[in-house]
């Protein structure tokens, strides 16, 4: 059956489709990190004093911290003094419409197949485009503004809505949380901010496309989403990045606050440069994402992780209020030499809280895929329920899948279920499909899509289509 193994191999070798660089002039800090760099960054951003203080205490805490080692990843050491901590397009444009956006930037988005204008018009998606740490385009704001919804860059929120930012920044992910989150708290440059007022249902999907572009610049995005009582919002985050030889660090922090009876749906498609077929280069994606759910509220994390050389990411829910709900739906693929250690934490504190975890890991090539999930039921969380399902799909015989579920239950009324499975795309399955006229590549896509469908159906429609495409691209050359 050797012929068929070769076919699988060939399938896994397509080049990264989004590998290109744009040539926008950048204003970049020289490499290195110290208190002075933090102060300079803060000054450029025009931070108020309290924010500078937040950065400085984070930086001081960070100096005392070490990188986590409990993960199942092999990571080349990062020299934090060799990174540059700020990069911005030289002219910060004041934009009223898309026409004013730098043509180079617009071309970049077009190459990505995500023409902003078309999206705005056709899909009714308001897009806050983050390009090298500084927002260059914010749209639909007026329309959202009529409803009292604030959707802007983090920097703008600091200027225009300082009370909200001050109240909630670090309230879910404290500045001492972990090495990467603490670093982010010290040097974050920009990101997105959303506030949905009481009782307002956000009428459109809010969307941000991230893109890492300037060489050697770690990206430290900061996102804060607040859904006030009885409101609801769906937020989409998608990203692709240009070809790169050196490892690039990306350490974002996302905080969600779902106040009483509100709903936040946060969906991610992550497609950063995964490195080449030999495992050279690629993004290090060390992200801290967490939401706090108050009484009767609901937070849903949906992620499709196809990119990055290394993914370290555990979007979590603190189910603080009674009857709050946390959900986590994840598809993570690793091909070639990619590694992923991803999962979630569901922390049940309130009574009758519920959580659902559905994790689908796909490993191909020499990829290593780890699911790591914690379910904690606090002693007051009477009637808490959790259902976890972790499925792994292996393509070829040099990849790996690992599952580390942690349970900590302090209330005897809790009901916790965990199901896990591992399967392999067999050569006999591929041959069966081919005998029916379906090519190897289509067969793999079909089987993988079937495997992931419980997660895909949680994604907003247009995202689900994109996710499917990305998945098939990331697994190209994985079957033979």
């Amino acid at each position, binding site marked *: *059956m050797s*012929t068929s193994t070769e076919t699988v191999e060939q399938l896994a070798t397509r080049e990264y489709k989004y590998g290109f660089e744009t040539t926008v002039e950048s204003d970049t800090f020289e490499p290195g990190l110290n208190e002075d760099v933090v102060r300079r960054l803060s000054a450029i951003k025009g931070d108020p004093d309290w924010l500078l203080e937040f950065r400085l205490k984070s930086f001081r805490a960070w100096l005392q911290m070490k990188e986590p080692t409990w993960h199942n990843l092999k990571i080349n050491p990062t020299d934090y003094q060799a990174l540059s901590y700020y990069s911005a397009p030289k002219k910060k444009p004041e934009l009223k419409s898309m026409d004013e956006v730098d043509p180079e930037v617009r071309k970049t988005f077009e190459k990505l197949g995500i023409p902003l204008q078309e999206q705005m018009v056709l899909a009714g998606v308001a897009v806050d485009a983050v390009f090298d740490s500084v927002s260059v385009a914010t749209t639909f704001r007026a329309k959202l503004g009529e409803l009292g919804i604030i959707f802007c860059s983090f920097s703008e929120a600091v200027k225009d809505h300082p009370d909200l930012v001050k109240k909630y920044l670090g309230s879910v992910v404290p500045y001492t949380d972990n090495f990467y989150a603490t670093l982010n708290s010290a040097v974050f440059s920009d990101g997105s901010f959303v506030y949905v007022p009481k009782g307002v249902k956000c009428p459109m999907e809010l969307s941000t496309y991230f893109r890492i572009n300037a060489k050697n610049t770690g990206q430290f995005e900061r996102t804060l989403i607040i859904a006030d009582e009885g409101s609801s919002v769906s937020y989409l985050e998608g990203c692709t990045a240009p070809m790169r030889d050196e490892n690039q660090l990306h350490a974002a922090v996302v905080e969600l606050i779902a106040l009483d009876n509100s709903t936040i749906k946060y969906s991610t498609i992550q497609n950063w440069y995964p490195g080449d077929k030999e495992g050279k280069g690629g993004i290090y994606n060390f992200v801290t994402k967490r939401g706090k759910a108050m009484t009767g509220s609901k937070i849903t994390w949906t992620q499709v992780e196809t990119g990055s050389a290394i993914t370290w990411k555990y979007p979590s829910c603190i189910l603080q209020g009674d009857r709050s709900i946390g959900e986590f739906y994840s598809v993570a693929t690793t091909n070639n030499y990619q590694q992923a250690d991803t999962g979630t934490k569901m922390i049940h504190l309130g009574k009758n809280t519920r959580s659902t975890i559905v994790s689908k890991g796909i490993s191909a090539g020499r990829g290593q895929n780890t699911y790591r999930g914690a379910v904690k039921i606090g002693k007051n969380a009477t009637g808490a329920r959790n259902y976890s399902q972790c499925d792994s799909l292996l393509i070829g015989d040099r990849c790996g899948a690992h599952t580390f579920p942690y349970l900590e239950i302090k209330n005897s009324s809790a009901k916790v279920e965990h199901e896990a499975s591992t399967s392999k795309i067999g050569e006999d399955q591929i041959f*069966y499909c081919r*005998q*029916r006229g379906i090519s190897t590549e289509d067969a793999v896509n079909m089987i993988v899509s*079937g495997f992931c469908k419980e997660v895909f159906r949680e994604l907003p429609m247009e995202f689900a289509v994109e996710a499917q495409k990305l998945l098939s691209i990331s697994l190209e050359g994985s079957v033979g």
Partner: protein
Amino acid sequence: MLLEIKDLRVKAEGKEILKGLTLSVPTGQVHAIMGPNGSGKSTLARALSGHPGYEVTSGEVRYNGQDLLAMAPEERATAGVFMAFQYPVEIPGVNNSYFLKAALNAKRKAQGQPELDAVEFLQLIKSRAKLLEMDQAMLGRAVNEGFSGGEKKRNEIFQMAVLEPRLAILDETDSGLDIDALKIVSTGVNALRSPDRAMLVVTHYQRLLNYIVPDVVHVLTDGRIVRSGGKELALELEDKGYGWLDAAPAGARA
């Protein structure tokens, strides 16, 4: 001649199984391949469908004038070669009718026909499902997942009815079927007999041939066709077993 096999030699796992097999099947006929266990019946079926585990070391196969051995399995399929598997695999997560639609549209595309839309496809599969007395619910389930042995075989013939091949190869379709399932499957197969289609029915037992009456019966022993004849040859084999053929000259033809 729709299918012409000349002096075909095939290895599986390093061992030669077919040792110079020659066989012709004209359009419109049903040919049965019978033979004892290990004679190479299933190897023939898999080699014709292009299974990567079977290595053709020499010989020639022409299908509709084309060099079949030069074609990839999916090219053979879209050119009209269909194999009903002896052991159909389960494909969890992939909906049976979705799978079939992909297969049908791959074939239509290869033949320059427009793809069927959802409504046309639904009408087609409903009519074919009736032919095989398939429960509609089976169409919505994952491909072969949790199907009984009989349901799997019925699903194979159902797929064949939808894909309408020019050459259908039935690899021990009768194995594992009880008499009722055998009747249903045979009815389905007989309904698909057509002047435009040839069938190669591989079986160990004569029983199937009571229901699917072949035009020609070939006996395969030790990698070669040792005898060919009419349908009465199958009855003779049932009566006498395969042993009496050992002495017969290799390569004998009808």
